[in-house]
Structures are given as C-alpha cells and as structure tokens.
C-alpha cells in the first residue's frame, strides 16, 4: 500500500484495464451485481430518510401515527 498519488492512479488504471479485458459474460454478471447493490443502497437511503419537519402549529407525528 502506498500513498503515492501517481502510483495510485496507475494501479486504478490497471485495475480498470483488467476488468475491461474480462469475458463479456463475466462483465455482464458484474453489471447485475452493481445494479442490485445500487438498488439496495437506494432502498436503505429511502428507509433511513429523515421524516419531514412538522411546520409550526402542527402536532408532531409519532412513527406509525395517523
């Protein structure tokens, strides 16, 4: 492990080249996985989204209320 920036960029480039050179079927499998991961992240974000702030004069709502 190094904190040498040119070295980091070089190794990133090499990793991208290695990935690009993989068989197409394998790359498409990775696409499936990337999409599933992105959807899982999006779902967890929406679950964890802060409830909207009650405006002045309204009664604060409790979870599951209403």
């Amino acid at each position: 492990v190094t904190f040498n920036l040119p070295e980091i960029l070089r190794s990133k480039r090499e990793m991208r080249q290695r990935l690009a050179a993989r068989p197409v079927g394998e790359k498409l499998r990775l696409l499936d996985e990337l999409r599933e991961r992105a959807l899982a992240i999006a779902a967890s974000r929406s679950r964890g989204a802060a409830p909207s702030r009650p405006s002045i004069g309204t009664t604060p709502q409790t979870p599951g209320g209403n």
Partner: protein
Amino acid sequence: VKVKQILALVNRMQADGVIERYAIGGAVGATFYLEPIATLDVDIFVAFRPEPGRLLVSPLPIIEYLRARGCTLQGEYIIIADWPVQFLPPTGPLAEEALAEARLFDVEGEPAWVFSAEHLAAIALETGRPKDKTRLLQFIESGALDLGRLDAILVRHGLQERWRRFEQQFLEDGP
C-alpha cells in the same frame, strides 16, 4: 446472467419478426468494450417494422409480444429479467448508422448486437451530458477506439467542432 436472458428474449423477438435490427447502446453497450459501468437500465435501439398505413412507428407490437411472455410495463420501461429495458428508435442519422453498423458479440452462446465502440463514443460526444463525457474519456483512456474510424464518423455527422472543444477541455495540457 440476467442481461443474457434479456438478449435471449430480444433475439427470439427478432426471429419472430416483431423487430428488424436491434443493438444495445448506453452503459450496457459500453460494458462490452470497457470495465462494467454501473447502470439501472438497458437501452436497446431497434428498427421498428413500419405498420401498413401508419406514418409513425409504434412500440405496441414489442409491448404486446413481451407482455404475452410475462414481462410487465413500468412507465417507459419494460421489465425483463428484473431489468428495466427501454426500446428506442434511432433518433437521428448517427444512431441510424450505429444501428446499421452494430457489432455482433457472443455472450456465453447468446448472440448480442451492440453499437461499435466508435459509435458509442460519437453518441456520447453528441449527447454531451457530464456522464457521457466521462464515458468518452473512459473510451479514450482504454484504447478501445479505432481513432481513424471515430474521426470518419465525427466528420460524417458534423461533430468535429464538438470534438475540438472536448479535446480542449479534457485532453490538452493547459496552464
């Protein structure tokens, strides 16, 4: 591979005469040449069969064909093998040429027509959103492009000035 299931269905749809030519574009198309590029949908460009007596092409035959095979609609997308898939007509001369000159790949025994790397790069330049410029840079850095072929495409479609600006912005060492 779910994308392979999409290909199998689209190939069958082509064999059954619902569509003529097709080719994959967008991030999934680019993944055939580059490292996998995360995306949430699949863009498939198709030559729609013109219906007799109609001036506008309609995606209805595709929708009916796929719904009969268990696919569902979600807005502009058709869900195939869990992926939202968008069927698009070529929207201009560049996309028409890209469709006509698509390359044939083999995905674990399943044929796949995909836009050429040079056409994907030219379309990215033409579209010009930040993510398209990033993709164009990825293509250039990867060495996947035949630059002579790309140049000919840019000349044919009047994109040289746009390319010159892109070069100035991203490829020239500035002060």
